[in-house]
């Protein structure tokens, strides 16, 4: 991780690395891509790194003894080390998954598999009387797997609420997290509200009660410097495609001692120790959790994405996004009939700005924006319970990243005004 530097942020130079950003959409409108919260775009150095790997060293890793296999294994493990260092952990604690969703499922399934996986796995087992705590602002990826775990095991799901101003409601933390709690799973940064949650506070209470903490870091790791070891969480996940890397790759971090005790999830080749028809034993982590031929070139691409982020500096990226968020919140707040869903200021808040427009449905706002070349997301953004809690069926979400420009914020605000005008409701009336 780099520290804040005084080099000015040259967004034009950054944008030049992203070929897609120079395309036009909808009859020649320049693309204004404000949907990085769903998936980010990829810079040329990432695309080149992946292609170079495929054209020179591609082969099955950890399986072959020939030169290509050596080179491929080195590249894959080098990527793992790079990514581990990026989030403050050691390489042996990084498991490659296809996306963050798989990582969360891996932990949730380990906890039901623990029932039949022998004494070592006992600390993962859950059953009736045990509780899993999540929050009402979770992405479905950090909610449904826990619901399903409860369904499989008879454990009970409980959850934190959300305050009026879009923060985690900690008022009942001591009733929610008790000695019955086995896992507390929460987002580092909400993918709708932009809220950055007080992970340390929750982790402290969870650990006091002997619960494991699973952090959904999908929306934090891409945007500011994150150190899992420092945060003290037990598990964490993030996705490559949200941080300039390829699709099809994600990371599960697990504290080494936990990974060592955790039963396998997907099973098959490369994760075994001994296989007999009568039964099998398993390799140490991280291999134990990487069954089958892995996402080799994608790991290399994600490693290159981390190099790219490091070269720019996470502090500088965060500062740039902070400024964008500030401008967007200001611009939208100034529009009559527009309400921000989430904190209205930038304290403990990322550059994801969700909002609703009185009397114009989010889908219709999105359509008008799309017609102007502005790509936002509309709907519940895989956080349906949060929208219900906020009393809205859906919202419009603009999510900014390092390649967005201040002028794009202004284009967005003007676009929202245009939607109000087009539908002849609210705003200007």
């Amino acid at each position: 991780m780099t520290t804040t530097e005084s080099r000015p942020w040259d967004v034009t130079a950054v944008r030049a690395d992203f070929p897609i950003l120079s395309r036009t959409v909808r009859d020649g409108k320049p693309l204004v891509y404000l949907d990085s919260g769903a998936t980010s775009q990829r810079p040329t150095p990432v695309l080149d790194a992946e292609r170079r790997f495929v054209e020179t060293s591609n082969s099955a890793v950890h399986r072959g003894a020939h030169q290509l296999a050596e080179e491929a294994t080195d590249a894959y493990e080098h990527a793992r080390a790079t990514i581990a260092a990026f989030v403050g952990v050691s390489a042996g604690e990084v498991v490659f998954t296809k996306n963050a969703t798989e990582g969360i499922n891996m932990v949730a399934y380990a906890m039901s598999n623990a029932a039949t996986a022998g004494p070592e796995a006992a600390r993962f087992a859950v059953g009736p009387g045990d509780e899993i705590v999540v929050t009402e602002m979770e992405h479905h990826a950090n909610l449904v797997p826990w619901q399903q775990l409860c369904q499989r095991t008879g454990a009970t799901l409980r959850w934190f609420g959300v305050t009026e101003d879009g923060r985690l409601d900690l008022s009942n933390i001591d009733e929610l997290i008790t000695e019955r709690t086995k896992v507390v799973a929460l987002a580092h940064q909400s993918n709708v509200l932009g809220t950055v949650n007080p992970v340390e506070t929750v982790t402290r209470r969870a650990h006091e009660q002997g619960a494991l903490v699973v952090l959904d870091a999908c929306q934090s790791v891409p945007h500011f410097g994150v150190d899992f070891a420092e945060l003290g969480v037990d598990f964490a996940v993030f996705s490559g495609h949200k941080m300039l890397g390829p699709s099809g790759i994600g990371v599960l971090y697990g504290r080494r001692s936990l990974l060592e005790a955790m039963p396998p999830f997907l099973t098959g080749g490369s994760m075994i120790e001994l296989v007999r028809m009568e039964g099998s034993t398993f390799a140490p982590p991280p291999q134990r959790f990487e069954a089958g031929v892995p996402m080799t070139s994608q790991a290399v691409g994600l490693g290159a994405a981390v190099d790219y982020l490091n070269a720019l500096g996470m502090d500088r990226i965060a500062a740039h996004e902070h400024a964008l968020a500030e401008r967007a919140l200001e611009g939208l707040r100034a529009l009559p009939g527009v309400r921000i869903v989430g904190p209205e200021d930038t304290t403990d808040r990322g550059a994801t700005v969700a909002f609703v427009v009185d009397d114009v449905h989010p889908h219709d706002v999105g359509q008008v924006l799309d017609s102007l070349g502005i790509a936002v997301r509309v709907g519940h953004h895989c956080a349906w319970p949060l929208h219900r809690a906020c009393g809205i069926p859906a919202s419009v979400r603009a999510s900014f990243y390092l390649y967005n420009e201040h002028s794009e914020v202004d284009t967005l605000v003007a676009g929202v005004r245009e939607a109000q005008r087009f539908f002849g409701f609210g705003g200007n009336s």
Partner: protein
Amino acid sequence: MNLESMYQEIILDHYKNPHARGLREPYDAESFQVNPTCGDEVTLRVRLDGDTVADVSYDGQGCSISQASTSVLTDLVIGRPLPEAMEKLEAFSALMQSRGEAEPDEDVLEDGVAFAGVAKYPARVKCALLGWMAFKDAVGRTSTSEVSTP
């Protein structure tokens, strides 16, 4: 892109002044449909009188497209023989799946032809079909008169 090609006046009119809106008694079957990508939902009731669609009533929340198309649906099917209503359902579905390539038949679809532009936007096709799917489902349930609440 021409916004007006999607949001034709007819659509906006139905959106602002929806026809036959509100849930009414009596009814033979009800269907609840939801668009999982955006959370839009509709509850729709059907009353048959012999082979005739005696009433269709509905409530829900959704975008202009889903609201307007459900409003148009009620115009098209209330008071019609069921087979004719089902024919309109087929025609409207076909139009929406056409990616904007089909030439809609105004005799069959009346105001429904205004949705031809929507068919060019795959993400909005589900919106346009939401009420229609509820109608189809509810008609299917009239024999058993179950109520679906997922």
